[in-house]
Each structure stands twice: as C-alpha cells, then as structure tokens.
C-alpha cells in the first residue's frame, strides 16, 4: 500500500467539493435560462440527479466503472456498496474512498447536464427514472471504457477529464431526449427568453470555479499536471468567452451576456479532455475555436428543427467533440506521453484517428440507448407534461410551487405581495397538521 500523500489528498478533497458545486451551478445556469414559470422544475432535475445518482454510485456505480473488468466493457460488482474500502488503501497517494467520492460527483453532473435539452416540459418522476436508467446503462459503463480500464482507454484514446465520458455522452443523450419529447408549444416562433440573466451568469461562474476541481482534480494529485490543467482551463475558457461574443458582435452587432456565459461553458467543455496535454497558447487556440464554433452550432437546432431548449447539444456535444479532436492537433508529447504529439506539434495522424474513434463510439452508444430509454418511458408512463401544464407553468403542475413572490414595486413594498396575492388567502385546509389529500392539478 503506497503511502498517503497529504497534499494530494487535500487537493482531491477540495476538488470533490468543487465538482459537487458544479451541479447546483448548472441548476442556476439552466434555471436562469428558462421562463419564470419553469425554473423550479429545471433546477429540481439537477437536485434530483444529485440525490439519485449519488446513491446508485454507492450501490453499484463505482463498482461497475472502476472495480474489475469484464472484456473491456464493464467492471464487476466486487465493490458494490463500497464495502471494504474503508481501509483498503491509497491508490496513487489518496484514499480509495476519496477517489470514489470524487468520481461520484462526475456521475452526478453528467446526468444533470442532459436535463437542459428538455426544459419546460419534462415531468419530474419520469426524469428521475430516466436518470437512474441512463446512469446505469450508459454512464457507469462508459466511465469504465474511458477511465476504468475499459476498451477506449486501453486503445490509447486521450480524455483527461471527460470530453467523451462526460460531455459527448451527456450531449448525445440530450439530443435523443429532445427528439423524444418534441418541441415546446410555440417553438421556434416564440422567443424563449432567459428570465434571469444574472442568475445565468452566476451559474456559469460557479461552474467555472468548480471546473478547476473537475479538470485539475483529475490529475489525482497536487502536481505539475494539476498546475497545467488549471491554467489551461482558465485561459481556454477566457478565450472561448471572447470567441463566442466576437461571433455575436460580427453577426448580430452586439455581444450578449448569454453569449458570454455560453462561451465560458463551451470553453470549459472544450478544454476538459485536453487540459493536461496542451501548452497555454494551445489552450487559448482551442478555446477560441470552441467558443466560435459552438456559437455557430446553436443555429443547428433552428435548421434541423429539434428543440434542444438550452443548447446542450451545441455546447456539450459539439464542444466535447472539438476538444477531443483538437488533442490530435495540439497535444505536446512531454505532457501527453511519448508518441502522442499532435499534428501541429510534429505528431502523426494516429492520435487524431484514435480520438475520433472515442468520440464516435460514445456518441452513438449514448444516443441510441438514451433514445430507447426515453422512448420507452414516453410510451409507457409518459415523459412529457400535458400541454396545459406546459402553458400554465410546469413549476406549479409538477411541484405545486411558483418560483418568485415579488411584486412590481420591489421588496416589501408591492401591493400584491402585501395583499397576499399569489401567496393566496386562506389555506384550503387548516394547517394544524399536514393535509393528506392529493393536490389537485
């Protein structure tokens, strides 16, 4: 048993906390983009994913992904329940259980990412069912393929922190669900304007902050690889912000805050698989490209008429593909390992080819399985909310709540707030104790 490295342990403890924060960050990022009548449902999809996937990870997810290997395809159940890991050891200087905790956070956010494609119209129960099935059938095995000793990693495909396992994986599933659930009422004729852009920016900021744990934490230690990952994450993201808003400036005449926030996420996604393999100038190039191309990719859904509501496909799937492939151009041998130089750094075409294999494999597998799960749910218990619920607000239909209780004239002073309008008048039942009837739709 290798000795525990307290510095590495400190950094991975921190990183795990940072990655956990990303999912609420995502909930804010997505939630701010919806209309005010569906923000709670949007956020609940993230919080539900945290709740459910965390438990599945303990029950069998970690084991499938990282314990044992069956034909390069899946792990086994030898570490189910994380039993026996309390004292098991310290792989690479950190406690095994810490590694399991750190990776748990990845499983959670990957599932949550998908929900942006089905904003405003997904029922919460079926979403939880989907989340559990997709995590089990797609995320856990794919994590094994890429990082757990499975076939993609063995092939030599490079994915430092999750370009294939996380972003392409989630983005392809998002596309599948957008197709299964169909377009929202009024789309694309109506504008679905974000109801709270400062909230979008806050969410993007928390994602950015947490992403340092995601990327630099994937080094598994507090070392040079973590340092390179951290600075590359920063500069690629900065470049992508500029890349996206410059596209808007040229095309539409003005740079938008939604563009700046989206650009940041596109940059973070793009640099994820590559962060430990590039020099900072390479990371900047990658970021500019990811920002600009994802900005253009948003137009796809209008062309192809699928309602990927919050652009999960354009940002995560496309951004993940860009990042994974650009490794083939920009990797530096001293960082990515012997024989892994990118095309622009004197390497051959082989690495690029491998990367493409990884991209396509995950994309196709995730899309197909997600489509089947989603379709099955829609045809059985029904995935999509009723049109009435959608038009009147899914927050009330699914959660019996509405997000805000302001009034036109601000805190404390509004007439409706003061009159208790919206807050309602008398409770239907005396709340001496919680009522037991079902809520009427």
């Amino acid at each position, binding site marked *: 048993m290798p000795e525990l490295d307290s510095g590495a342990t400190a950094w991975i403890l921190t990183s795990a906390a940072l990655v956990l924060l990303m999912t609420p960050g995502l909930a804010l990022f997505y939630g701010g983009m919806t209309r005010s009548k569906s923000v709670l449902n949007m956020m609940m999809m993230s919080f539900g994913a945290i709740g459910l996937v965390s438990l599945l990870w303990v029950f069998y997810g970690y084991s499938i992904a990282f314990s044992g290997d069956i034909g390069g395809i899946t792990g086994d159940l030898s570490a189910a329940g994380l039993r026996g890991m309390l004292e098991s050891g310290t792989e690479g200087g950190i406690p095994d259980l810490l590694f399991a905790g750190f990776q748990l956070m990845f499983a959670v956010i990957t599932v949550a990412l998908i929900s942006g494609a089905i904003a405003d119209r997904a029922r919460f129960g079926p979403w939880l069912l989907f989340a559990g099935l997709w995590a089990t059938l797609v995320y856990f095995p794919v994590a094994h393929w890429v990082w757990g000793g499975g076939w993609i990693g063995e092939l030599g495909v490079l994915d430092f922190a999750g370009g294939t396992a996380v972003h392409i994986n989630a983005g392809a599933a998002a596309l599948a669900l957008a197709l299964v659930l169909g377009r929202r009422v009024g789309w694309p004729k109506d504008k679905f304007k974000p109801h709270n852009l400062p909230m979008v920016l806050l969410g993007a900021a928390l994602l950015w902050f947490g992403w340092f744990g995601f990327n630099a934490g994937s080094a598994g230690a507090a070392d040079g690889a973590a340092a390179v990952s951290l600075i590359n994450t920063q500069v690629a993201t900065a470049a992508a912000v500029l890349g996206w808003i410059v596209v808007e400036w040229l095309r539409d005449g003005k740079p938008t805050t939604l563009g700046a926030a989206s650009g940041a996420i596109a940059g973070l996604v793009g640099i994820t698989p590559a962060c430990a393999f590039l020099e900072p100038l390479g990371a900047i190039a990658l970021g500019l490209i990811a920002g600009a191309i994802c900005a253009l990719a948003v137009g796809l859904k209008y062309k192809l008429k699928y309602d990927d509501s919050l652009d999960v496909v354009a940002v995560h799937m496309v951004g993940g593909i860009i990042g994974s492939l650009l490794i083939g151009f920009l990797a530096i041998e001293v960082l990515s390992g012997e024989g892994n130089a990118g095309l622009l750094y004197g390497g051959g075409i082989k690495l690029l080819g491998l990367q493409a294999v990884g991209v396509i494999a995950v994309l196709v597998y995730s899309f197909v399985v997600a489509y089947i799960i989603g379709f099955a749910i829609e045809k059985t218990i029904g995935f999509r909310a009723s049109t009435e619920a959608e038009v009147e607000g899914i927050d009330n239909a699914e959660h019996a709540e509405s997000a805000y209780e302001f*009034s*036109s*004239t601000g805190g404390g*002073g*509004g*007439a*409706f*707030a*003061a*009159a*208790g*309008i919206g807050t309602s*008048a008398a409770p239907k039942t005396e709340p001496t104790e919680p009522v037991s009837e079902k809520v009427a739709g």
Partner: protein
Amino acid sequence: MKLVTAVIKPHQLDAVKEALHTLGVAGLTVSEVQGYGRQKGHTEVYRGAEYTVEFLPKIRVEVLTDEIDVEKIVDAVVAAARTGKIGDGKVWVTAVEEVVRVRTGERGLDAL
C-alpha cells in the same frame, strides 16, 4: 351597468373580497397601483443620504355590476376597506354602456 373602482390598502383586500362575496358578487379584477396623496411615504437611506419614497402601494379593485346593486357594493367596499387611518383610498363609480362575457358572447346584464 356600472363599474365600481376602488383604490384601497393592500391589507384590506381580503376583507373587501369577503364583503363582495357576501353580497353575491362572484367576480372582480384587481391590479397593483401606487398611490400618492395626503398619506406620506417612508424614507429610505442610501449611502448616508435620506430619500423619501412618495408613492405607496395600493390595490385597485374593479367590479362590474348592475344599477340596482351599485349602492350596496359601494357601501360594502367602503366599509370593508376602512381602517380609519389616512391613506384608506377612494371608491368611484362610472357608467358602463355595454358588457360582454367573452366565453359565451352574452351581453348586458347576462354577462355579469
């Protein structure tokens, strides 16, 4: 037909609604307004300087009714909205020439 409009204190809305209900008035429309009158607003501080917030939140209540009930309705609203303190608001009546219920197209008294 008549339209009774009342500008009242927000906290009196419940009482007004109850009073109208008792009279058998089933429908009304309310909106948020700001009132400026003898009642003075409060002051807020910003960076050490005081500012007077002059407008105060009020609720406007509108009730369509027939000629016969209008007096009863006005009296009921005035009674229910009264706290006796400055700023209680106003109630006024205007004539309405035609009313239509959108759902059915019914007109006049039937539309109420």
